[in-house]
């Protein structure tokens, strides 16, 4: 399968994006940001539609701009209104999907594009996409490792982090920006509808089998890598759609981790 260049690019993209999703997922699950990721991912549909409407051959820049815009709007609305975060997320998610679908309906010859973005199309990844993915995934991995202690403390208690002298607001903004970039890029891998599972499921699986945060982080990183690689390989071997196959591999590993957890509990090895 490595003799086909599109397949090689698909594997490289999965190696680049799977692990960084696992790593980010550790904090996404702990900070209850799954719905946020989902909203950012869905807003990318409006980005794609606007990009194509403006005549861009590659809508990725438009996707990034709209996703970052929606993430910023969310933070602004959360600060300026008394609305609950859930309400703001639902508002932004449905509005951006509706906007995307309406613009798509006015474009001629792009109907098939919606499905590509909804469920992912890793096999159409171009060398340029690989370069962007390499740049962003390495940058975000470096940022998360550099801020690992700060993010852990902010997750544990924001006020405690502030009193300890951490620039909490900037770190939170940086994290949200990093998350937005990775989610938008990972849409190519698994699609808008399934991208949140690539962030959440490896991290949730790691929780079931780890005893501390170090283990949880390393296992989530490895599971992100394994699920993405395994999913691409399985989709090639069995001629299945790539994004959903990656997610099914994630889900199968999660079910396996539940079994592992049950066995360990019976053996009395789980910390109280």
């Amino acid at each position, binding site marked *: 399968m490595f003799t086909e260049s599109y397949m090689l690019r698909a594997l490289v993209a999965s190696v680049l994006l799977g692990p960084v999703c696992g790593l980010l997922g550790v904090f996404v*699950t*702990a900070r*209850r940001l799954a719905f946020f990721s989902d909203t950012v991912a869905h807003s990318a549909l409006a980005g794609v539609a606007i990009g194509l409407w403006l005549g861009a051959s590659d809508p990725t820049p438009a996707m990034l701009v709209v996703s970052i815009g929606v993430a910023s709007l969310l933070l602004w609305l959360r600060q300026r209104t008394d609305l609950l975060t859930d309400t703001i997320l639902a508002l932004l998610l449905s509005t951006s999907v509706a906007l995307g679908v309406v613009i798509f309906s006015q474009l001629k010859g792009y109907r098939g594009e919606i499905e590509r973005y909804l469920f992912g199309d890793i096999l159409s990844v171009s060398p340029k996409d690989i370069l962007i993915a390499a740049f962003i995934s390495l940058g975000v991995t470096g940022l998360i*490792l550099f801020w*690992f*202690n700060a993010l*852990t*403390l902010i*997750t*544990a*208690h*924001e*006020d*405690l982090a*502030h*009193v*300890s*002298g951490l620039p909490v607001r900037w770190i939170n903004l940086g994290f949200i920006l990093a998350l937005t970039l990775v989610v938008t890029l990972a849409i190519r891998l698994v699609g808008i509808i399934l991208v949140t599972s690539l962030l959440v499921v490896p991290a*949730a699986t790691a*929780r079931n089998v*780890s*005893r*501390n*945060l*170090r*283990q*949880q*982080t390393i296992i989530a990183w490895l599971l992100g890598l394994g699920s993405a690689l395994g999913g691409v390989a399985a989709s090639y071997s069995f001629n299945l759609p790539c994004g959903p196959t990656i997610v099914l591999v994630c889900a199968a590993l999660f079910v396996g981790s539940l079994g592992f957890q049950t066995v360990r509990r019976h053996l009395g090895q789980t*910390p*109280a």
Partner: protein
Amino acid sequence: MTHPPALEVQQVHVTLGGTPVLRGVTLSVPRGELVALIGPNGSGKTTLLRAILGLQSIDSGQIRIFGAPVSVSSLSRVGYVPQKLELDRGFGLSVREFLALSLPETRHWLWQSHRKIDLALASSLDGLGVMPLLNRPVSRLSGGQLQRVLIAWSLLRKPELLLLDEPTAGVDTPGERSFYEMIESVHRRHKMTIILVSHDLSMVFRHAHWVFALNGVVCCQGTPEDIVRNDSLKQAYGLHLTPYHHHHTGEISHVH
């Protein structure tokens, strides 16, 4: 030259959502004292605590920590012990990892061996009873255990002023007693200034040397014996307060 007090609050006003919460709070905490800041729910304790920690802006007035305005630099001399952490039960952070976040020599804990981290922690945490908890996830500790771990976390940073926010909320009575004994021991050994913020009067009265009662303003202050006889405190709490005999200092007060 005399040293400035550990904490000085002068005429601090804070309004939240149009309601004046702090209406000219003034108090001064000398260095090395163990004091309590008490008040019923809604009296402004949390708002004052947040203002001292730089988490809440003030409308007017002044707060000084060891003579300096509230800033990253002055807060580096302050240890803060919150009531609880915001972690869900599945977050794997162990006590060892949490404490390692606090020490410069273990800041690379993600790559360091447990033995190296434990050696660094053990030298600073003698007598706090947290070493047996190192492998436990922080999110699954009992209220009393978590408070010990949070105090240990603060002490690793060698603060000169320790602020504890409702430290025994959710801790059972025996746990409460041993917790306050630990606070007294920390106070004696480290000779630091400690401020307990609480609405739980009985335990605070047994252990604090000086008490500030807050109800929008500092309505009274003094030794626990003075405070318990003060009418404004009785009004604020709507409680019946009677004196009782304390095993350390002779007469002190108890709350019914």
